[in-house]
């Protein structure tokens, strides 16, 4: 791949001055490819865990146990009312120092890396919104349906898993879609705690090579592409899950 395109982009630089250094210098190319993977891992992990947090949270929110409900309300207030950037810094610099670490002689290998903190922070941030999104979906499930499930002998958890969530999920998908698109874009803030994702890497590349406009273009194409793929997938899912006559 690299050998295939490097000639073209080197020529492009020499003839027009457009410096897409990541496509013709081995060192920058390797950094760029690493950044693609780190970004994808970060986004996929955060998407997955944020949805898990949302599903569990929405269930806990309707729990008959008061303490659990209060805990959920506290969690949502905390994460929804603080900027994700501040959360990242807080997690990394404050909580990061309280977690166990291994002395490597001169520095410490932490149990949770900056990547790990980014996944945790972003999942909880987007998760707080997902909880509310799923709650809206759950409230849209008719009360009679819930009663019918109860009459059939379902416990609260069983009814949630087999009856309410499948219906609520369909109602929640458009709003969930929105929030997940936001999460993809928020993932760039992980650069604050030195997670070598796309923005972090390209910012370093443009500082080293003074080619800001070119790298900005790459950055835009990358995120437009990622969000397009996500939205396409979510729409497809929405369509496939549609129940004729419902909603």
């Amino acid at each position: 791949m690299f050998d295939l395109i490097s000639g073209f982009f080197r020529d492009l630089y020499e003839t027009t001055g457009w410096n897409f250094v990541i496509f013709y210098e081995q060192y920058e190319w390797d950094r760029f490819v690493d950044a693609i993977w780190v970004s994808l891992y970060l986004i996929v992990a955060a998407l997955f865990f944020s949805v898990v947090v949302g599903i569990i949270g929405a269930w806990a929110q309707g729990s008959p146990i008061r303490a659990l409900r209060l805990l959920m309300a506290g969690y949502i207030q905390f994460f929804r009312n603080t900027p994700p950037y501040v959360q990242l810094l807080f997690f990394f610099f404050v909580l990061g120092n309280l977690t166990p670490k291994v002395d490597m002689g001169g520095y410490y290998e932490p149990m949770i890396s900056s990547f790990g903190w980014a996944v945790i922070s972003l999942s909880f941030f987007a998760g707080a919104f997902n909880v509310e999104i799923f709650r809206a979906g759950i409230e849209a499930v008719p009360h009679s349906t819930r009663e019918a499930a109860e009459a059939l002998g379902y416990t609260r958890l069983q009814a949630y898993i087999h009856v309410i969530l499948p219906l609520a999920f369909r109602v929640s998908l458009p709003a969930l879609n929105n929030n997940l698109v936001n999460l993809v874009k928020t993932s760039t803030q992980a650069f604050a705690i030195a997670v070598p994702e796309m923005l972090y890497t390209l910012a370093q590349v443009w500082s080293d090579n003074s080619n800001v406009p070119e790298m900005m273009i790459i950055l835009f194409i990358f995120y437009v592409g990622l969000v397009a793929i996500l939205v396409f997938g979510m729409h497809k899912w929405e369509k496939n899950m549609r129940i004729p006559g419902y909603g």
Partner: protein
Amino acid sequence: MIKTWAKTALGVAVAAAVGFGMVSTAEAKNERFMEMMSRGKLVVGVKADYKPWGFRDPSGKIVGMEVDMAQDVADALGVSLELVPVQSSNRMQFLQQGKIDLMIATMSDRSDRRKLVGIVDPNYYTSGTNIMARKGAVKSWEDLRGKPVCGKQGAFYNKITAQRYGVKIVAFVGNAEAKQALRDGKCIAWVYDDSSIGSDLASGDWDNFEMPLASEDDNPWGLAVPLEELDGIWGHFMSGMTYWWHSSGRLIELEKKWGIKPTAYLQHQADKFKFEHGHLK
């Protein structure tokens, strides 16, 4: 017919726009200088987070060695001074976009940067690449191989140490975060510029740390004017200003004032450019 004509015109316009955008004009202009003199104010881009070159004092005012230099320029021109804080990653863009007239922002002078901004000769300072680490943790550059080393995003020390010694650079947005990460033990060392590390160590906040290695590279620092004006009045004026700073010993004086480790370069330049009044006789 009209359609083909429109297409051709559009093609020419796009080609011209691309051409003008990418090829720097060699012609010197004085627009910015004239505008600056008529408004009676010099706008200088300086660092606000790089002690002691440009930083905020407890009252929030930007002070430092480069700020004093900026003041010298304003005094020499007889205009007032406005300071704009810049970052390593945006300082050249600020100058290109006309947000600042002059940039004195701890910038290393490199050939690719000379294509973008008008770096004025002679250089006003030089520094080297070095690290700060816990006492006894690092004995040689080779000790760093494969280990996490903190850096500042946008600093070019990152790439050269990564390529030369295979260190794993962990770069943060600001110097403060990167040095906090070093203090927390998130990395074995903080790679940066020896003059900045020297002033940190001198500040007394870093008692358990040291600068254990011999500095590498001799990075000359360049102040810059807009590229088009390098060969105009503005560029020539700043060039003369820099000669005066060297020959008068003003930079050595400022270095002392701000507690920067004396560099051989400044002494050498001062000796070289020293103005002998005897020549006038």
